[in-house]
């Protein structure tokens, strides 16, 4: 039931638009893989999904399913099934008949279609809900039924367009678990559009990051966080630390000192911005020397923002040479997260330990 999908320079220009909504986007999804198309609103991610489904006609480029171009194929003949943000359950059909819809329109006898649908209702943990009217469901149940209905169509590629965005956080994590369970059982190829990078990180194997219709990076979730290819990617992934400097002989030199590239990494020579996830930075009270594989930076706690069980610290880098407490606005800053119980107060001196393996340098 799962197929491979690849996009080859997919471009979509809407009639009245000056610039393309989707600009030469290419990526591929392996059978059974889950790809998240991540991007801020207006990045063209939904247009990509609608083009794959056949609901929008691309201006240029190809969409290949199992190597075959699907251009000109009507949506119903592409073997896709889509789940939208709204459940869109047909109000004139019962829950069971909604799930049986694909089989019914495919010409299966009603009895068989319903028997089949029953299995999919069980798959989404709604056994026994079949005879109910769709108006008698809660929001989470509706989206489960929508998922069951899409899966019952045996799609070669399952398309999810922000399917869980309208649900509250608790329900959303339930749905993430459900999706993981479904992937373990039926291994569909999934393409999911989302604006939530945490959701992408939880659900997807790989992420295609879009901005302004362009594909910025297509990579695994982990590499997207730790090895962004550009400043844009680092910022879209929630990166907070940007240290401008210069790379000379594989060593980044900046206000925080010298940071050599991790083993196996090569950084482009010349001006470059060092980016590192603030989650990776450890804060040690008082002066400390760097353990193996770390870079130690002397800092002063400049700001402390509570974040529930954790606290976010803005760390002003002290002038390495003068060893004077910094505080000037233009001194570079690092961001770190510590447990809320750590007593690091504003003005306190500390050492930030940056793991070399978490650092990467991108063009400024």
């Amino acid at each position, binding site marked *: 039931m799962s197929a491979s999908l690849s996009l080859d320079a997919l471009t979509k220009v809407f009639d009245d638009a000056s610039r393309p909504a989707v600009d030469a986007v290419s990526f591929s999804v392996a059978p059974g893989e889950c790809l998240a198309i991540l991007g801020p609103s207006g990045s063209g991610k939904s247009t990509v999904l609608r083009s794959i*489904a*056949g*609901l929008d006609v691309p201006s240029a480029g190809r969409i290949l399913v199992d190597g075959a171009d699907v251009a000109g194929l*009507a*949506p*119903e*003949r*592409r*073997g*896709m*099934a*889509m789940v*939208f943000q*709204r459940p*869109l359950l*047909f*109000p*004139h059909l*019962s829950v069971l008949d909604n799930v049986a*819809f*694909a089989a*019914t*329109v*495919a010409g299966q006898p009603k009895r068989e279609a319903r028997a089949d649908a029953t299995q999919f209702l069980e798959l989404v943990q709604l056994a026994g809900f079949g*005879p*109910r*009217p769709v*108006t*008698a*469901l*809660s*929001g*989470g*149940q509706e989206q*489960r039924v929508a998922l069951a*209905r*899409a899966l019952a*169509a045996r799609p070669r590629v399952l*398309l999810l367009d922000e399917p869980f965005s309208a*649900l*509250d956080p608790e*329900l959303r994590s*339930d749905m993430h678990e459900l999706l993981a369970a479904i992937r373990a059982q039926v291994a569909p190829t999934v393409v999911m559009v989302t604006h939530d990078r945490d959701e992408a990180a939880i659900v997807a194997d790989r992420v295609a990051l879009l901005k302004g219709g362009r594909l910025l990076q297509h990579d695994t979730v982990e590499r997207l966080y730790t090895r962004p290819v550009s400043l844009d990617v680092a910022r879209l992934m929630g990166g907070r630390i940007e240290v401008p400097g210069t790379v000379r002989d594989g060593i980044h030199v900046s206000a925080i000192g010298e940071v050599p590239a991790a083993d196996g990494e090569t950084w482009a020579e010349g001006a470059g911005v060092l980016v590192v996830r603030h989650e990776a930075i450890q804060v040690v009270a008082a002066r400390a020397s760097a353990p193996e594989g770390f870079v130690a930076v002397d800092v002063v706690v400049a700001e402390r923002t509570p974040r529930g069980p954790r606290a976010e610290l803005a760390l002003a880098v002290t002038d390495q040479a003068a060893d004077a407490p910094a505080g000037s606005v233009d001194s570079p800053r690092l961001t770190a997260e510590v447990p809320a119980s750590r007593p690091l107060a504003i003005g306190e001196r500390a050492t930030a330990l940056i793991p070399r393996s978490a650092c990467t340098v991108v063009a400024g």
Partner: protein
Amino acid sequence: MAMMIPYGQRITPDTRETRSRGLMRPRPLGRVVRVVLASLLALWFALPLVPLLVWSVANRWSFPAVLPTEWGLDGLMTALEQGAAPAFGRSIVLALAVAAIATPLGALAARALTLGRVPAPRLVSGILLAPLALPAFVAVMGLTIVLLRARVPAALAVLLLLVAAALPYTVYTMRVAYAAHDLAFEEEARTLGASRWHVLWRVHLPLVAPGLARAAFLAFLVGWSDYVVTVLVGGGTLVTLPLLVGSYAAGVGNDAIVAVLSLSAIIPPLLLLLALGRFGRRYPAARFAGPTPSRSPKGSP
């Protein structure tokens, strides 16, 4: 017995009852005024029916008497002798034909207008609504000549004109229906493998069915109650119920016959109206006989 929750009455934590909303809470004086107004309105609608009902079973009812002086079914007998039954049948056929043609036409026009697929939409809407503004005589007098010259059979000519007269109602009703219609349902169905035909038959039509029923009802009424077009264009060849009523009402001493004919003219629209109230809902509640769904507030799984 399973009670179904009708469509739109979703029970959500913010209860939609007017009682709980300060601004909409009924005031005692307001309630009295409302009841009085409603009663007056009901009286106004029902009162004319009373003499009709009495007359239909009266053989003689001379002026000063409060009640008929002689009861009987002479009116009904005479009406039947004078061809009330075939006229009734012709009216039904004509009204159904008008509804059958004007409803899909109105739906198509409304959908195209709603989806913005029509150039100069305001002009087109205006033209479609024009028959409402134009006095029927004006249009009919001119068209009669055209249709007669073109040798269009009288019955067909009547049908064509009545369809045009019914279009404003069907277009308007269907525009309301399509404004509330969500195209995403159709897209969803397409991705699930439904062809255009399947989408039309299994998704689109069921979703707009209540609107279609209302539009068809209005178109039926246009055909059912028409007098002017049938007289002028039909030239007396097509005798429908309104024509029969008209001719007897013009005479003297036919009150019983007119009463019987008028009452029979009320029956089909009344039945349709009842059917509309019963089946014309957006959500066919009676179809789902099952356990009463447990109502969990929206948001819990």
